[in-house]
């Protein structure tokens, strides 16, 4: 089955509002950001060799 859903005007407005809010908020951030994003991934968890 293929996605052939046509978005309504209400859905399109919601999407526009959401993206605008996110982009304005991210753009307004003025503090120095760290060079790396948050460590949400722990590769050591996949290491099956004994430490």
């Amino acid at each position, binding site marked *: *089955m293929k996605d052939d859903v046509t978005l309504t005007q209400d859905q399109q407005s919601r999407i526009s509002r959401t993206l605008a809010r996110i982009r304005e908020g991210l753009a307004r951030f003025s503090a120095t950001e760290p060079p790396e*994003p948050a460590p949400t991934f722990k590769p050591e968890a996949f290491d099956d060799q004994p430490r």
Partner: protein
Amino acid sequence: MTNPVESLSGQVAALAGGSATPSSLAEHALERAAELGDLNAFVALDPGTILAQAKAATARRKAGRALSAIDGIPIAVKDNYLTRDFPTTACSRALPGESDGVDATVVAKLRAAGAVIFGKTNMHEWAYGATNGTSSFGPTLNPHDKGRITGGSSGGSAAAVAAGIVGAALGSDTGGSVRIPSAACGIYGFKPGYGRASRHGVLALSWSLDAPGPLARELDDIERLLPYFLGPDSADPSTFGSVPMQPTGFRAEPLLLALTGKGLERSDEVEAALAAALRAGGMPVAEAELPAIDSYFAAWEAILHCEATAYHRERLATSAAGFSPVTLAHLKAGTQITADEYLRAQAIRTSFVEMLLKRMGKWDALVLPTLPVVAPLVGEDWQEFGGRKVTTQDSMTWFCWIGNLAGLPCVTIPVPNSGSGLPVGMMLMGRPGKDEDLLAIAKMLDSRINGKATS
């Protein structure tokens, strides 16, 4: 007929003392659920399956072979946890609603301890919203006032506990989904810190924000259930390095830091209830404002939509019509967030964590109301408070997202409300890895605010 022993801890005592059996508890709970069917708290509740579990637990107890203190205790499960004996739908038509025969890790641990898996509870579709108004099974109603919403997304779990059907239930929390309905329904809810509890078998909303957690009538109930949540699970890499529940050494008077200011407004009624509770708590409370809150909220929202869309990518391509219109709009928004924006959001998240943990001075727990308003009326689209007018959806996550973006353990406790009398929750957020200390702090406050005995 009400369940004769409504809290999980009370049920544990009744079973140990012989005044109840697992079968009698299950029968009472089923009767209560039937009486309160109009709450729409449950989406799968097969008496045969439940009574068979209870009968087996009754036999074990009679033979002196109880598996644990909670052997035979009924516990309801949110419909995004996989359960081998009930279908899992996430309350969405986009999921077939079949059981694939496996349990989520938390469910498996509870089942191994003898808990009676007491059906599946209603929720906001895919946990992608905080009102419980969007569900393929219809909305859930608040036991305190059936004209009001429960909040969500674990609204069915909260309603089942608040109505005295079960003593405890399981929920999940990405932007407050355990805490929000707990507060709106006047019960306790606990979100473990990120990576302390296994998400395995809990359908994802946003994998770097999600946490499973318990909802209950007492903090003692939460304390009894947390050992089944906390600890490493080889099936969930985020729990690598997690430790099982530890005894807390926290005995000191905690340093509380109340967050205030722009972006953290609340209604006068909620502020009055929180202030009175803090006075009753009798602990020194410092205050601090959070800077740049719009940017931090944008980071949370970007991560949420981006990860949810990635999780649903295949479903979105093949069966988009199964999603509700609002959920589909959220997912479509996620497809337009760029990799650069996602990574920027994660970097801002790191700044947020550093700011909270390193630049806000010493604190043991951050304090906020759980919600800025009391439970909204059914059908109410907007909330006005503190000079703000926001959607009901945004009002529900108004404070709670902070705990998910920072990955902190969080708890909500009900506090007296001399205004309308409707439930108001106080939220405490602890330091990373200090879930046990946070529970200890919450118990100290609960004893002073609500007169609950501490154990």
